[in-house]
C-alpha cells in the first residue's frame, strides 16, 4: 500500500514537473542578437506606417535642397526592405508637400538636414517618439500594451555627406568618391523606426565587431559604397519577429 502510494506520488510529481517546466521557461523565442525593446508600433497588426519624403519639387525653397524623385524612390526601397520581411509592420511612402502630408496624418518624415554637434562624419540619424511625445525609454517606457506605442519618426540624411542612387550598379565609384548608397542607408534607418538597436556590439570595430551582426542590415556602421544592408539577414528578421511576430494578423510575438 505504501509502495503503491509512493509510486503514485512520484508519478504525480514527474508529470507536474514535466507540465510546468515549459511554462517556466516561457514561450519559444527566436534568437536575436539585437538589443530590442518592447516598444512597438500600435496594434492591431499587420500595421501600415505611412511616412512622407521631402521632395525638392514640392519644396524648392527648403534648405538644404531635398530629395529628387529618383532619390525618393531609392529611399523608399529602404522601407521596402522591412515591408517584405513578412512580419507585422510595413511602410507606405508618400512623396508629397509638407502641408499635405501633415494634414493627412503622415507624422513621420524623411529629409536631408544637419545636426552639427554629432561626431563628424555621421551618415544619417533616426529620431523616434512614443505617442505622448516622450523619449521612449527610461522614465517614459514605451510599450504599446500600456498605451505608449511608437507614434512617429524622423529620418535625417546628413546634408554634408555624399550619396548615390545605386552604388551596386556603379562599380567602385561610390567607394572612390565617398558616396553612400541611399537604399543601403535607408534600410538601416528604417530598422530604427521600430526602435531596433544596432546589431554587433562593436566597441572598437577592429577588435570586437561582433561576428553575428557584421553582415546584417542593423550593423552599427556603414561604409561608402556598401550595399549589403539592402537585404535582411536572419539576425535582422529574428529581431523583427521577436518584436512583432510573423504577419498572421494576430498579436503573437514569435513565429510559428
Amino acid at each position, binding site marked *: 500500500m505504501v509502495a503503491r502510494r509512493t509510486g503514485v506520488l512520484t508519478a504525480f510529481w514527474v508529470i507536474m514537473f514535466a507540465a510546468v517546466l515549459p511554462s517556466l521557461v516561457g514561450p519559444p523565442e527566436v534568437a536575436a542578437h539585437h538589443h530590442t525593446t518592447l516598444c512597438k508600433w500600435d496594434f492591431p497588426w499587420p500595421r501600415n506606417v505611412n511616412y512622407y519624403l521631402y521632395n525638392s519639387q514640392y519644396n524648392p525653397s527648403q534648405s538644404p535642397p531635398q530629395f529628387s524623385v529618383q532619390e525618393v524612390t531609392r529611399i523608399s526601397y529602404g522601407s521596402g526592405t522591412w515591408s517584405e520581411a513578412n512580419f507585422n509592420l510595413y511602410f507606405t511612402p508618400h512623396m508629397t508637400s509638407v502641408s499635405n502630408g501633415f494634414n493627412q496624418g503622415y507624422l513621420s518624415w524623411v529629409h536631408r538636414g544637419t545636426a552639427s554637434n554629432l561626431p563628424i562624419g555621421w551618415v544619417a540619424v533616426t529620431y523616434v517618439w512614443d505617442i505622448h511625445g516622450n523619449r521612449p525609454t527610461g522614465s517614459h517606457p514605451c510599450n504599446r500594451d500600456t498605451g505608449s506605442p511608437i507614434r512617429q519618426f524622423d529620418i535625417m540624411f546628413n546634408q554634408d555627406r555624399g550619396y548615390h542612387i545605386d552604388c551596386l550598379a556603379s562599380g567602385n565609384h561610390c567607394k572612390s568618391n565617398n558616396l553612400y548608397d541611399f537604399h543601403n542607408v535607408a534600410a538601416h534607418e528604417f530598422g530604427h523606426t521600430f526602435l531596433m538597436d544596432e546589431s554587433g556590439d562593436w566597441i572598437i*570595430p577592429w577588435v570586437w565587431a561582433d561576428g553575428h551582426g557584421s553582415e546584417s542590415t542593423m550593423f552599427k556602421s556603414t561604409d561608402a559604397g556598401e550595399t549589403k544592408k539592402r537585404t535582411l539577414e536572419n539576425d535582422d528578421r529574428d529581431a523583427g519577429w521577436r518584436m512583432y511576430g510573423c504577419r498572421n494578423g494576430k498579436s503573437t510575438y514569435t513565429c510559428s
Partner: protein
Amino acid sequence: MRQFTLRQIVWVISIFGLGSLAIILGAQRTFAERGEPPPTAVSTSPRVTTTPAKVGDKPSVYCGAYGFVTYPAPPSLEMLPWVSHQIVTGTVVEQSEPYWDAPTMTGPDVETEVGGSLRTIATDYTIRVDQRLRGEDIATVTVARAGGTIDDCSMAYADEVPFQVGERVLLFLAEPLGDSTGKYVLATPLGHWAFIDDQTVVPARALELLRERPDEIPKDVLPQIMLPYDEFAGRLLASLRSGAPPEGEYAGGLEVVSLKDAPIQLDTAP
C-alpha cells in the same frame, strides 16, 4: 484487459487537471515577468490610442525624441589618429547649460507645418588639456556634444556617452566648427576614451558594458578594450610618424587629415 477503478480514474483526471492549471498559471507568470500581458489580453481588446501628441505645444519637434546615429568607422587603430585634427588628454572641468542648436533644416513652411521648431539641443564641455599628441597648441578645448535637457524638453542619442565633469579623457577631435565659436566636435564616435585609472583607457562607449554587464565581453576581447595608455599613445604616434595612413587602407569613409594640417604635437600642456 485491465479494469481501472474509479479511484484510479479520479487520480489521472486530477493530475492532468492540476498540470493544465499549472501550465496556465506558469504562462501568466512568464508573461508578467516579461512585462507583457498574455496575448489574449491584446487580441480581445487592443488599445488603439488615436489622440495625437501635441508636438505643436513644444518648443521643438525633437523634444522627447530618442536618436540612433549611423556612423562610418575607422577600420584600425593605426587609422584612428589620421582622421583626427586634434588628439589630447585632459580633464573635463566645465559643462555649459544645454542650448538650442541650429535648425536641422529651414524653409518657409517647414516649422509651422510640422508643429514646432526644428532645433536640437546641444551641450558644451570645457576640457583642460594635460597632454597633446596632435594638432593645435591649446591649453583648453571646448567640445560641443549633441543632447541635453532644457526645461521639460529632453533629447538623447543611443551610444552617445556624455562627458562627466571631473572625468579624465583622451579625445580624438575634428577641426573646429565653421561657426567662429572655435568649438570642436568628436572626429568619430570612437573619439571619446575615458581613463579608468591613471594608466588605462577604454572607449567611453564600453563603460556601461564594463560596469554593468562585464560578463558579456569575451575574455580575449577585454585586454584589447582596456588599454595601457602609454602603449596606446605609442602606437598612435608611431602611425603618425610613419608619415602616411596605412598603405592601401580605406579610411572608413572619414577624411584623412595630413600632418601639414595637424602636426604631431607631443608635449605637456602648460
